[in-house]
């Protein structure tokens, strides 16, 4: 098919963005129209917004088994992580000056900790094994007398690995250290229960489960001290000032409500597609490595490293075939730096450059996977023919 001609589009990039649920959009529309009131106003217009806010808060709380007063709305998963890491660390500064983080945390966690260095706090990075798993024993070893906060993500979207968060939370409780988990990649996808996990704070974002972008939340256990993230008025209990994004929050609430009912069905369907892809892609092309843990894995995610070629070149070629995917290669990042997650798993730079991440959305089908598996091998063959690394590999193999 000539480039630019109309073709089938297959969206396999859930981790970047999910389509907005029609139900969420419908729920949001009145708040982009006649229901424009400010939730802090006393009058009927304001109270209408206040009611919508409360309802959404309840729905989000129910999704993670929290109580409504423990949910703080934010603008993104990154904000939630910033809020938790900086807010908890600085509010508990008198108890110590040390943080423990996993090496595969999202940059919003790692860079928050980096910012805290300016305030005299230091952090230790806990390594992961080659499947991206954190060993809770390593977390325990990294905790010092000065440690006030531990942060290990619930699941990593880039490699799909689900971390043993409940076990780590138990260790933190025993050592009287706060525990935050970035669950942005997990909430709405797999069951998350803040009480069963035993976490002190948890980040989630609506755009990871078919809600609108710009609408996320932080769960913070009742009674914990945290520094306000935005100083201002009384919104979000005075801890995150600023007029609420009512439409976004309503969309998030609706997406949370629907996620709670459809999660199992969605996961089962995605898992079937994921497993076919994980099985068939390495069958079709040699030197394709699955990244992340095979079992402790997000149901909708399949990630690989394709040896001897680079991710961006693959993404561009896939895009021309109508397929949208992601990569952690240096070239695809604006920073031109290979994914810290893949490097932390012990992959060398050349292999990490061949990173590809496929993640399924609700309406993907078996035909989509079939199409991907069919167009993939010629793309790889063409790029490998161009690759000096592949030529070197063939020469060495021939020797």
């Amino acid at each position: 098919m000539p480039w630019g001609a109309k073709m089938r589009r297959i969206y396999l990039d859930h981790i970047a963005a999910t389509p907005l649920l029609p139900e969420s959009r419908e729920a949001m529309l009145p708040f982009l129209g006649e229901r424009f009131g400010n939730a802090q106003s006393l009058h009927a217009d304001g109270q209408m917004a206040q009611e919508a806010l409360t309802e959404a808060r309840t729905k989000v709380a129910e999704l993670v088994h929290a109580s409504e007063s423990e949910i703080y709305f934010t603008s993104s998963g990154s904000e939630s992580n910033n809020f938790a890491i900086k807010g908890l660390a600085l509010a508990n500064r008198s108890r110590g000056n040390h943080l423990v983080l996993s090496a595969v945390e999202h940059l919003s966690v790692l860079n928050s900790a980096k910012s805290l260095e300016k305030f005299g706090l230091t952090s230790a990075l806990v390594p992961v094994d080659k499947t991206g798993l954190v060993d809770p024993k390593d977390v325990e070893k990294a905790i010092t007398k000065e440690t006030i906060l531990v942060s290990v993500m619930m699941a990593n979207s880039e490699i799909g690995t689900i971390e043993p968060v409940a076990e780590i939370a138990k260790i933190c409780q025993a050592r009287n250290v706060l525990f935050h988990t970035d669950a942005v990649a997990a909430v709405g996808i797999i069951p998350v229960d803040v009480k069963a996990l035993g976490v002190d704070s948890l980040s989630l974002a609506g755009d990871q489960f078919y809600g609108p972008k710009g609408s996320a939340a932080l769960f913070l256990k009742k009674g914990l001290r945290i520094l306000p993230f935005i100083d201002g008025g009384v919104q979000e209990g005075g801890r995150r000032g600023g007029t609420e994004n009512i439409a976004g929050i309503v969309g998030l609430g609706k997406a949370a409500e629907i996620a709670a009912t459809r999660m199992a069905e969605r996961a089962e369907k995605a898992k079937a597609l994921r497993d076919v892809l994980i099985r068939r892609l390495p069958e079709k092309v040699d030197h394709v490595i699955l990244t992340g843990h095979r079992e402790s894995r997000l149901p909708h995610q399949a990630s690989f490293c394709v040896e001897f070629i680079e991710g961006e070149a693959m993404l561009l070629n896939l895009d021309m075939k109508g397929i949208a995917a992601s990569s952690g290669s240096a070239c695809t990042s604006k920073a031109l730096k290979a994914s810290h997650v893949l490097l932390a798993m012990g992959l060398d730079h050349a292999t990490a450059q061949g990173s590809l991440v496929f993640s399924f959305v609700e309406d993907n089908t078996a035909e989509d996977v079939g199409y991907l598996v069919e167009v993939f091998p010629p793309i790889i063959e063409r790029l490998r023919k161009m690759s000096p690394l592949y030529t070197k590999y063939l020469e060495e193999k021939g020797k």
Partner: protein
Amino acid sequence: MIYSEKVMDHFQNPRNVGVIPDADGIGEVGNPVCGDMMTFYIKVKNDRLADVKFQTFGCGAAIAVSSMVSEMAMDKTLQEAMAITNDKVAEMLGGLPKNKLHCSNLGADALHKAIEDYEAKHKPGAKEAAAAGPAKGAEVHAEDEACCCPYCEGPLEGMEAVCSCHHCDIELEECPECGKYTNKADETCVNCGARLAKS
């Protein structure tokens, strides 16, 4: 689309891809840390580039740059080919995204290295060097390892065994084990984990 039509054309239909088995000169630049590696092969006849081929590991920009350089250099005299600059290549491609100018736009450098390799082999008394074969390129590219800081995206200051990253405000040194840059103050190499000797 992040790339110009011209870039996408060269990326989709790269000219002169391949290896010249009996090349007169070979030039390599780049390393996988930055994501891009290019190898250029040349055949020289009567001081002209009779054939130019390349192989590239890298992003769309790196592949398009290599292809464009091969096209620009073909049939040119060695002197003309040495006058091709990375900037000119980017211009001929209708521009490159800003963040690609540094790491991916190395095609002219690789071509120049291939020509230097040819000249080294064909200068009087350079027969011994020629016997060492095309390995030369691999040795030369050590200086290009410095193309970015391993901790941030930033360019490095200085191209010596020790250099610094202004963004991270650290001094970097080459790891004796893997040859990549790592924080001088650290005990182990960030790339390979080898223990760094402290003086």
